[in-house]
């Protein structure tokens, strides 16, 4: 990227809240129902119906606010955002404008150089989602599915303080992690439960004021966010370097073509005619309520990461990976508690083989058959030298496939490590005897043939020989 330019990015993240029912009605928020089966009269905007605020949504918004050190407004107000669209049943969206429930806050991320950087959070407000238009399979007509209408969203608005696409992704990942820790959103990006709009502008390094921004809409994967922002930055640089001007507009990212294209310009922008919704009273939140919620907050990723480094003596990068989700962190701690291996070895297994297996089978931790106790059982077989780390990988795969416990598999496959000195010695003698030319070469100074002999011994024992002992005895024999 051109080094004359400073990139300025702000994100508006929409996190769907994991409430059972909608923000202003009793209809279910479950994903994937038949069209319009999860929309009650309120969601359909039927004449005479009125919204009633879901208290759970308020509680979740407060949890988020507390987690990012924000101020919780003692009085917040719902407002109507008026515009016509077929998937917006009332002709207005209930949102918050002047008095949002969460004000301020901040989030630390690692910048491009691996240093901590604080990104300011401007505000987070509650609003209802719209339904969606369906254009496929209706013989050229358009259908409306209002299942999603009224689903609670928390819109989290950042300050324009990110200066690269990578930082934007790091920030979004962090928010993603937080909302899942708090259990206020499932964060499912494929289902659209977690998505963002990015405001992107560029300016010369010596320039004080911000450049004209373009808003990129509906970015719903970490990969697309990075690509879309990078693409948009290049587009803006080209425009300005060619002597043009960036227009303030809303642009849509097309992941198939890897390009952004205009949706509407500032001139065409709606006048939303916001005003306080007279059907809803202001939300009054008292200190005690906030204090009660505060008591229920879980340990958050940053604190947990720090504790993992201090308690388990883990590498910073490993502690960070393990604390990405609460589930993974909990799983690690459960393994660590039972396993007699070093904490770092346990971490290697959780981050390595275990996570790889989850990814390979596209499973969540809760859906995997292999439990933390199972994995710890395997690690204990390494710790007591029953098997080597290498054999353990074979046992792990068998355990993953449901063939039994570590003990059972080691038993049935005869994988117990050979640790008996005399037994190893016999095999080593055999190997030396069978390879006289290699022995001669080694003795004449070809040291790297040592590995050859180790390999032969392991081959003979099908990998079961204790590698340390093999090394030890072999070294004695060959001098």
């Amino acid at each position: 990227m051109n080094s004359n330019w400073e990139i300025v990015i702000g994100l508006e993240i929409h996190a769907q809240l994991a409430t059972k029912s909608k923000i202003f009605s009793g209809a279910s928020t479950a994903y994937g129902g038949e069209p319009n089966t999860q929309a009650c009269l309120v969601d359909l905007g039927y004449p005479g119906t009125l919204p009633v605020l879901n208290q759970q949504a308020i509680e979740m918004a407060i949890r988020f606010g507390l987690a990012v050190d924000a101020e919780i407004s003692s009085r917040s107000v719902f407002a109507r955002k008026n515009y016509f669209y077929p998937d917006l049943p009332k002709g207005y969206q209930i949102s918050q404008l002047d008095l949002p429930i969460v004000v301020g806050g901040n989030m630390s991320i690692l910048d491009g150089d691996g240093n901590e950087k604080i990104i300011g959070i401007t505000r987070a407000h509650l609003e209802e989602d719209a339904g969606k238009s369906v254009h496929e399979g209706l013989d050229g007509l358009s259908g409306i599915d209002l299942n999603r209408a009224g689903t609670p969203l928390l819109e989290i608005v950042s300050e324009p303080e990110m200066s690269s696409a990578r930082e934007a992704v790091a920030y979004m990942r962090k928010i993603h992690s937080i909302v899942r820790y708090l259990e206020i959103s499932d964060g499912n990006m494929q289902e659209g439960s977690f998505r963002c709009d990015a405001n992107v502008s560029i300016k010369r390094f010596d320039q004080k004021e911000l450049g004209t921004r373009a808003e990129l809409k509906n970015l719903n994967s970490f990969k697309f966010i990075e690509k879309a922002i990078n693409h948009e930055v290049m587009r803006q640089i080209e425009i300005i370097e060619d002597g043009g001007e960036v227009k303030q507009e809303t642009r849509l990212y097309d992941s198939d073509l890897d390009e952004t294209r205009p949706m509407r310009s500032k001139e065409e922008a709606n006048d939303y005619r916001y005003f306080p919704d007279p059907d809803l009273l202001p939300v009054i939140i008292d200190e005690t309520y906030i204090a009660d919620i505060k008591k229920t907050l879980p340990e958050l990723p940053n604190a947990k990461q720090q504790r993992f480094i201090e308690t388990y003596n883990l590498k910073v990068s490993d502690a960070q990976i393990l604390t990405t989700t609460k589930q993974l962190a909990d799983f690690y701690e459960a393994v660590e508690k039972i396993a007699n291996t070093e904490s770092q070895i346990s971490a290697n297994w959780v981050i390595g083989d275990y996570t790889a297996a989850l990814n390979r089978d596209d499973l969540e931790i809760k859906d995997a058959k292999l439990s933390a106790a199972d994995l710890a059982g395997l690690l204990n077989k390494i710790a007591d030298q029953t098997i080597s780390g290498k054999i353990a990988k074979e046992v792990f795969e068998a355990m993953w496939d449901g063939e039994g416990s570590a003990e059972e598999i080691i038993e049935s496959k005869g994988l117990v490590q050979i640790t008996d000195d005399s037994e190893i010695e016999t095999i080593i003698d055999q190997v030396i005897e069978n390879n006289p030319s290699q022995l001669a070469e080694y003795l004449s100074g070809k040291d790297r043939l040592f590995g050859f002999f180790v390999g032969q011994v392991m081959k003979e024992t099908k990998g079961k020989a204790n590698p340390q002992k093999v090394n030890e005895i072999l070294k004695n024999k060959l001098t």
Partner: protein
Amino acid sequence: MIIKEIQNMTLCALKQGMKDKDFTSLEITEVLLSRINGLGATLNAFITVTAEQAIKEAKDADKLIATGKDKPLLGLPIAHKDLFCTDGVLTSCASKMLHNFIPPYDASVVKNLKASGAIMLGKTNMDEFAMGSSNETSYYGPVKNPWNLDLSPGGSSGGSATAVAACLVPAATGTDTGGSIRQPAALTGITGIKPTYGRVSRFGMIAFASSLDQGGVFTRSVEDAALLLGEMAGFDENDSTSVDVPVPDYLGGINQPVKGLKIGLVRQHFDAGLDDDNAIAVKEALDVLKDQGAVIIDIDLPNIELSVPTYYVVASAECSSNLSRYDGVRFGYRAENYKDLNEFYCKTRGEGFGAEVKRRIMTGTYVLSAGYYDAYYLKAQKVRQLISQDFKKAFEKVDLIAGPTTPSPAFSLGAKMDDPIEMYLNDIYTIGANLAGLPGMSIPCGFVNGLPVGLQLVGKHFGEESLLQCGHHYQQATDWHLQIPEQFK
């Protein structure tokens, strides 16, 4: 008891009559249905008459009565303004936009009254979406005033008022956003009460202006109003603006003496806008109350003259948003020929809404627009606060505020249709109570040129009891409320 007199009776009298076995609910229902479809048809008070359903419900009520069952309104017939949603029965809001709208649910008011045993005879005509003061904006045509068929009954609840005044039904529901119960009650010579904002659930009551709308009743006596209001009022978890305050026994407490009651008379209400004869009728009414021991105190509402412009900014703003849902997508009227989405909206709304509704949507859209919001909507909200404070201050000195309900008696149909400002000024005395969320009631207090005029009483928040007590004592001493238009006797 002669069956012919059933139509003139109050709810309380009908209830007693059924109890005494003078007549049955079915007999009452049949008498009234025949009046609605016969003598009353020229009034155009009803949009829908639910005869079959009413007869069935009356028979069921009679069975219950026979087994000794009692409910506060068991077997008593009423009518609902056509903006209360009624399960399976057309609810049109007197608009082409909803000419085919059959709700799948009952409004809370309808549900409450049904649960108390009331029988619905039909749905009454009104101004389109309750926007109007003469009942002339209805898609179903104007309602006529039973005192003179060339005159307007007022609006927007003109059908309900006329139905009660012409003895087609003993009571009817209405809604009042700026005077839509009290003004037609005054112009047709009956009792009409709009309770405190939040006293009656708005759930299922099709919205005009959410922060001002409030359901209420039309009856032939204050006593009946107390009975009916007690049954329809109360907290509703489906309406966030309804207030969780227990409903007192309005009827049981109605005989509380008015001795020592302090009644405020608003100086600003007796300025040049008020008809002389109307002013005299109101002053005479106050003399009656004075004789009963009430104390009359002059008060000021310094900002009350700003109530009409304030109201038309706030109400229009809210309605412009509330009526956005009528887009032809999910229910109601839908235009037939359109080439794109924009034209679909323009034609559906252009054809579905009448002129007055469009005027208010335009006004409301304008006052909420970027660049105008502060000057209009925000300013109006501030003035609204001032007006509320004026009332609050006044109520430190008095228990009730009294004055005229309207500046003059009923006007001719068509007289004000070309002059919206003149029409809006008809609500000059009633709008204040809506802006401040206070209960208001109009009771008949005399005649000017053979036409009824009303005395308006405005109370403190949740002060319905003192309104009803005061009105009841007044009706004990007078017979204005017993007058029935000659043609409908």
